[in-house]
C-alpha cells in the first residue's frame, strides 16, 4: 500500500507542479458549466440531467488527455527504467497511476458540484437520490475510462498516439449501445451489456443494480490487468 501511495503522490505532484492539472480542471469546469447553464433555465427542471448527459461526452476527450502521459511519458523520458529497477511491483505502479488519474477526474467532477448548489438554491423538490446516483455513475464511468486510458498509455511511448487510441477505445465502448440496430439479434444482449452508456443510464435513473457495478469494476480490473501484462512483457522483449 505504501508503494501505491508513493506512486500516487508522485503523480499528483507531477500534475500540480505543472500547468496540466489546472488547465484540465478549469477547462473541464467551463465546458460543463457552459453546456449545463445554457439549457438549465430554459427547461425549468429541478434536476442535473443535462449535466449528467454532457459530462460523458466531455469525458470522451478529457480522460484520454489526462491519462495519455501516465505511462507513455515514463517510457519516453526513460524514467520507466528507474521505476523498473526499484523494488516496486508492477501492479503497485499501475494502481498508483490509475488512482492519480482517477483522482484528477474526481476533482473535475467535484468542481461541477457548484451546479448542484445552484440547483438547491433555485430549484424545488430536488431528488437528492437521483443526483447521488448520477454522480456515482459518472464516477464509475470516469474510473472505467481512466483504466482504458492507463492501458492505452502503456502500449506506446508517444503520448499523442496514446491519446488517439484512448479516444478511439472509449468511443467504441460509449457508442456500442447506439449501434444495436446493426448487430445480429443473438449478439444484441452481449453488445448492450458491454456498452458503458447502457450501465451509466441505468445507474443515473437511480437504480444501483449489482450488474452495473459488476460491469464497471470488471472493466476497470480488466484494463488494469492488461496494463500490468503489457508492462511485464516489455521486460521480456
Amino acid at each position: 500500500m505504501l508503494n501505491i501511495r508513493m506512486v500516487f503522490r508522485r503523480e499528483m505532484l507531477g500534475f500540480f507542479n505543472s500547468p496540466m492539472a489546472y488547465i484540465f480542471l478549469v477547462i473541464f469546469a467551463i465546458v460543463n458549466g457552459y453546456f449545463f447553464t445554457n439549457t438549465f433555465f430554459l427547461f425549468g427542471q429541478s434536476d442535473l440531467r443535462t449535466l449528467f448527459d454532457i459530462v460523458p461526452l466531455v469525458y470522451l476527450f478529457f480522460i484520454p488527455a489526462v491519462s495519455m502521459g501516465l505511462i507513455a511519458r515514463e517510457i519516453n523520458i526513460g524514467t520507466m527504467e528507474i521505476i523498473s529497477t526499484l523494488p516496486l511491483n508492477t501492479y503497485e505502479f499501475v494502481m498508483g497511476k490509475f488512482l492519480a488519474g482517477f483522482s484528477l477526474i474526481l476533482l473535475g467532477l467535484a468542481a461541477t458540484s457548484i451546479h448542484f448548489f445552484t440547483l438547491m438554491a433555485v430549484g424545488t423538490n430536488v431528488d437528492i437520490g437521483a443526483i447521488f446516483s448520477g454522480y456515482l455513475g459518472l464516477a464509475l464511468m470516469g474510473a472505467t475510462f481512466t483504466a482504458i486510458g492507463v492501458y492505452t498509455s502503456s502500449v506506446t511511448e508517444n503520448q499523442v498516439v496514446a491519446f488517439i487510441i484512448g479516444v478511439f477505445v472509449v468511443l467504441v465502448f460509449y457508442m456500442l449501445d447506439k449501434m444495436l440496430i446493426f448487430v445480429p439479434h443473438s449478439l444484441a444482449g452481449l453488445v448492450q451489456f458491454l456498452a458503458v452508456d447502457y450501465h451509466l443510464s441505468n445507474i443515473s435513473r437511480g437504480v444501483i443494480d449489482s450488474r452495473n457495478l459488476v460491469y464497471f469494476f470488471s472493466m476497470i480490473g480488466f484494463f488494469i490487468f492488461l496494463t500490468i501484462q503489457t508492462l511485464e512483457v516489455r521486460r521480456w522483449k
Partner: protein
Amino acid sequence: MIKVTDLSKNYGHVEAVKSISFEIQDGEIVGFLGANGAGKTTTLKMITGYLVPTEGKIEVNDLNIIDDTHEIQKQIGYLPELNPLYTEMRVYEHFEFLAGIRNITGRPFKDALARVVEQCGLNGVIHKNISECSKGYKQRIGLASAMIHDPKILILDEPVTGLDPNQIVEIRGLIKKLGKEKLVFMSSHILQEIQATVDRIMIIHEGEIVANGTSDELMSNFMGNVLLNMEIKGGSVESIEHIQAKLPSVKFISMENSNGIQHVQFEYDKGQDPREELFRYAVDNNWSILKMTPHTTNLEDIFRDLTTEGDINA
C-alpha cells in the same frame, strides 16, 4: 558479489549479449568498456532487473535475478545511461519518492538525504526544480538517487557523460571513495575515464567479453610488437632494407626519404630490445642516427585492436 554465468540477450534476431560470464567481488571497482552498441548497457539492464535475460544466470550476493528480483534491487543503486529524472519535481521531492519506494521515510529519510547531499554536493539545489538544474547537477542528482538507500552495489552506466573536466574529476573522486566500501560496476566508452577510476577492466565487443583484467594484466597479455621510429642519415636504401638479414629480431616495416634523411619504421618483439645492436650496426655502416623512438602499445591501442572488427585475437 555479482556472478554472471553464460548470460545472453537477444532483441528479436539480434544477439546483443552472447553468453558472457564474469564475477565481481565486494569492494572492487570494475570498468565495463566497449564501443557504442557493444552490449554494455544491455548487460547492466539485465543485472538491475530491468530486462530479463534470454539465457544464462545472474546472481547477486547469492540471490537469483529471476526469483529474487526485488531483493536484489534493494541492494543495488543504479544510474542509467541517459540519467532520466522527473524534471517537473523539486530535487528533494524526487529523492523523497525514490526513498519512499524503498521504505525510507521520516527520520531515516532525512539522514539519507543529508548524506547524499553532502556526498554529491547538492546543497545549493535541493529546493530547486530539477528542470532548473544544470547538466552537472542533474548528473549528481542521478548519482545521489542511486545512493539514497546506501546500497552495497552501485551500477553506473556512463556516469560522467556530458560533464565538464572539473565535474569529471569530482565524480571520479566520489566513485573511488565509494569503491572502498561498495562494489562499483561502471560502464564507459571513454578509456581514459575507466583507466583513471577502476581496479579492473572488462572489454566487451559485439556482445562478447574480449578482455578482463587490471590495466597491467591487459598490457602484458595484449601488448603486441614494439614499433621503432628512426631517422637515419647516410644509410643506403638497400643496407637499411636488408637489416633484417643481419638482425633477425628486427623487422623492417617502411621507409621514406626526406632531404637525405631516411625515416624508417622497424618492429620488434616486446620481449626483446635490439636498440643497442641497431646502434652498433649503424656505427659499423657509418650511419648517423638522428632519432630512435620506440612506440610501445598502450591501453588505447589494445582497446582499439580488441574492439575493431576482425582483430579480436590481436
